[in-house]
């Protein structure tokens, strides 16, 4: 019997990187198949290949035994497969009905859109799923749950009987997850096949029959979920040899507390308490949606805290979002995404590195001629920033060097606490080492560091790692943790 999907030998290369290496995936008809793997394992690439958005360098895909259509025949792909992404593909300004029939509206005489028919068709589609959504509502007003159902309804209306759900539960509460799973089961019974991508391993045991594990572009394990223990699953995701690599405890005597966070509540996290000591690096780990980024941004003053307190060296900090005040209080900050919140691309390296200390370069806010350049040159030397000159626009630098600029900027104000969010995201190995070395140098000088990241190398540089799950602190791992335990904790799974 043919699988609903049969992909064999799928290989995809991006420049030097082998994203997928001869991956085989067979999804049986009417089943729920789970696809798991750490960030960068190749899940997104495989989804793009399976939905026809990316052409693989090698390999074959067949749906129900029929070879996949050519890549440019989007309509043919849409009749076979659809993916409901975490990021919505619904157009918020249009109504639900319009979204369902976008670009294929039923028309009446003279080619005018038959709105009555659009609404009737939309109602029929949603009724078929037993979803009670008013088709005239603006799509922007839909909840995440409703939005997912509209996307599923649209996929089904194209004729697709194979649907990929990309982390569908990430933004849902428990009741909504149960409703989603009930609908998935009902659709399965009606002949629809699902590929389910999730970070929440517990859910995989609840919904999926078969699981496939990707690691570094390889399909490392596939089989019925009943036959694989949680520990095995995590081992497959991380790779057996990774167990040996652990962070060594630093062994210096515990020092006095620098930052005390007590019962802090903010956007997406609740009741977080933690302490960072002088000269200590504390990691904050968690998957997307765990609240870790918002926690870091709240400490840095980019977001307002709703409740709770932050004290820095004994002084209580006001809870309003004011980055300037936090910098003046002694908190340095490297924001999450260097393109979005980090650099000002057209401005020079000199401007970008000194941005936090412009007011300290001279009196009355005047920046004396040459002061920026001298200051920038010092930082370029100290952090190994490679640029043609301090005047070079920062957009001409490599990602790693831009990230060094951001770290230099954060340290320029001589902070007592450094808040770093994904400080080594998307940089090459050498830059990563240099960045972590610079963080370590700051630590040795007595700076406390709060390092928010899901990168294992970053987290290994920490004295302790605090794990957030669904907005709450769920675990604290002392240096020497095994990757195994960290991943179990971030995926919200109790191993024992």
């Amino acid at each position, binding site marked *: 019997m043919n699988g609903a999907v049969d992909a064999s030998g799928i290989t995809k290369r991006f420049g030097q990187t082998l994203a997928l290496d001869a991956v085989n995936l067979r999804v049986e008809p009417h089943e729920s198949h789970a696809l798991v793997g750490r960030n960068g394992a190749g899940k997104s690439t495989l989804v793009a290949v399976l939905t026809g958005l990316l052409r693989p360098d090698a390999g074959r895909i067949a749906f129900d035994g029929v070879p996949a259509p050519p890549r440019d025949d989007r309509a043919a792909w849409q009749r076979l497969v659809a993916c409901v992404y975490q990021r919505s593909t619904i157009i918020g300004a249009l109504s639900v009905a319009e979204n369902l029939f976008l670009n294929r509206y039923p028309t009446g005489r003279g080619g005018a859109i038959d709105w009555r028919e659009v609404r009737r068709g939309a109602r029929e589609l949603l009724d078929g799923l037993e979803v009670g959504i008013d088709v005239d509502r603006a799509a922007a007003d839909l909840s995440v749950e409703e939005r997912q159902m509209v996307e599923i309804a649209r996929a089904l209306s194209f004729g697709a009987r194979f649907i990929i759900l990309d982390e569908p539960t990430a933004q849902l509460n428990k009741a909504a997850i149960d409703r989603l799973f009930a609908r998935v089961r009902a659709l399965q019974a009606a002949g629809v096949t699902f590929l389910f991508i999730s970070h929440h391993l517990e859910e995989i045991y609840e919904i999926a029959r078969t699981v496939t594990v990707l690691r570094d572009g390889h399909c490392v394990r596939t089989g019925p979920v009943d036959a694989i223990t949680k520990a095995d699953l995590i081992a497959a995701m991380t790779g057996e040899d990774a167990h040996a690599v652990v962070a060594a405890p630093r062994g210096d005597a515990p020092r006095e507390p620098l930052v005390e966070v007590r019962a802090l509540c903010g956007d997406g996290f609740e009741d977080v308490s933690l302490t960072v000591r002088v000269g200590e690096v504390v990691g904050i780990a968690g998957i997307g949606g765990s609240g870790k980024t918002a926690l870091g941004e709240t400490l*840095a003053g*980019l977001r307002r805290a709703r409740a709770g307190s932050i004290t820095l060296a004994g002084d209580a900090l006001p809870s309003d979002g004011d*980055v*300037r005040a*936090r*910098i003046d209080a002694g908190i340095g*900050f490297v*924001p999450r995404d260097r393109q*979005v*919140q*980090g*650099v*000002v*691309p*057209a*401005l*020079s390296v000199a*401007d970008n590195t000194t*941005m*936090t200390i*412009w*007011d300290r*370069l001279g009196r009355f*806010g*005047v*920046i*004396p*001629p040459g002061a920026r350049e001298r200051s920038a040159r010092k930082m370029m030397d100290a952090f190994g920033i490679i640029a043609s*000159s301090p*005047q070079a*626009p920062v957009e001409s630098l490599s990602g790693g060097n831009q990230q060094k600029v951001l770290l230099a*900027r954060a340290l320029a104000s001589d902070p007592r606490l450094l808040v770093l969010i994904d400080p080594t995201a998307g940089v090459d190995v050498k830059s990563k080492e240099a960045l972590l070395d610079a963080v370590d140098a700051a630590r040795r000088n007595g700076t406390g560091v709060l390092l928010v990241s899901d990168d294992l190398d970053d987290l290994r540089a920490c004295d302790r790692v605090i794990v957030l799950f669904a907005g709450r602190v769920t675990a604290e791992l002392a240096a020497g943790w095994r990757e195994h335990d960290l991943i179990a904790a971030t995926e919200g799974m109790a191993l024992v």
Partner: protein
Amino acid sequence: MTGASVAAGTRFGFMRELGLIPALVVIVLVGALINNKFLTPINIVNILANTSALALLVLGETLVLIAGKFDLSLESIVGLAPATGLMLVLSSAARGWGIDLPVPVGLVAMLALGALVGAINGTLVVRLRLNAFIVTLAMLIILRGLLLGMTHGETLFEVPDAYLFLGAATVAGLPVSVWLTALCYVAAALFLRYHRLGRALYAIGGNAQAARAAGIRVGRVTIGAYVVAGLLAAVAGLIMCGRVGAVAANQGNGWIFNVFAAAVIGGVSLDGGKGTMLGALTGALLLNVVDNLLTLAQVETFWIQAIYGGIILLALMFSRLTNRAEQV
């Protein structure tokens, strides 16, 4: 006097900073060839005097544009501010409000009105996150309407001497307005390069989120740019009042097109984060030189606008070619 330009410091970057100057030189040479009155001292002073008011408006607009925002209402301040300043001091017989406030109070009120309009614009745009284009368009229409309502569409002729000083008096052969404008440009160029708030304008226009994450108070600085622009527009209005010796109910109408044309021709990006004072000034000068030439060449008045628009388009294309950087 470079701003934050992309490649300042390199030789090529310096060429880019020159921007419109080659174009300006070419037009002046052509002008000198086709009309012997063009390159005379009297005419040059005339061009400079004509440019000064517009150039102040361009300066203010450039500050707002560098911060990545818009202000269309500046041209309406050019009329409303001096008219208000006058009507506070004029008697009812002279079409004032008849409250006969002292002249200095009128002058201060005039400047304060410009700054106040800027503050309102800035607050609406920054704090309520309204679209700058629409907010300042609405403000433009409101202020124009206020001016018409106040004056009943009539011109204010009785202007105290103090109001004439900026536009009419001369120092060392040049009108005071020209000196003032030159001073403002030098100060603004230094401010943009050597003051943290000047650099902050570029950072905000270049990437507001990043500026905020780096501790720049994005809202305050942006509102500040609007306030300065409004204030400068009021000064420009006073200059016009002095040059004409009266305030007409349509003073400033239609200027905003020239303000934007000058800024954009001068290399100021409508997307924010890019632009220099040298560019803004040469843009304003170029427009006035062309205007002057068309007048001297006795082009039929009815055709001047069309030709003017065509020249603005040509200048844009020309500066796009020489700058290579994107203009809009």
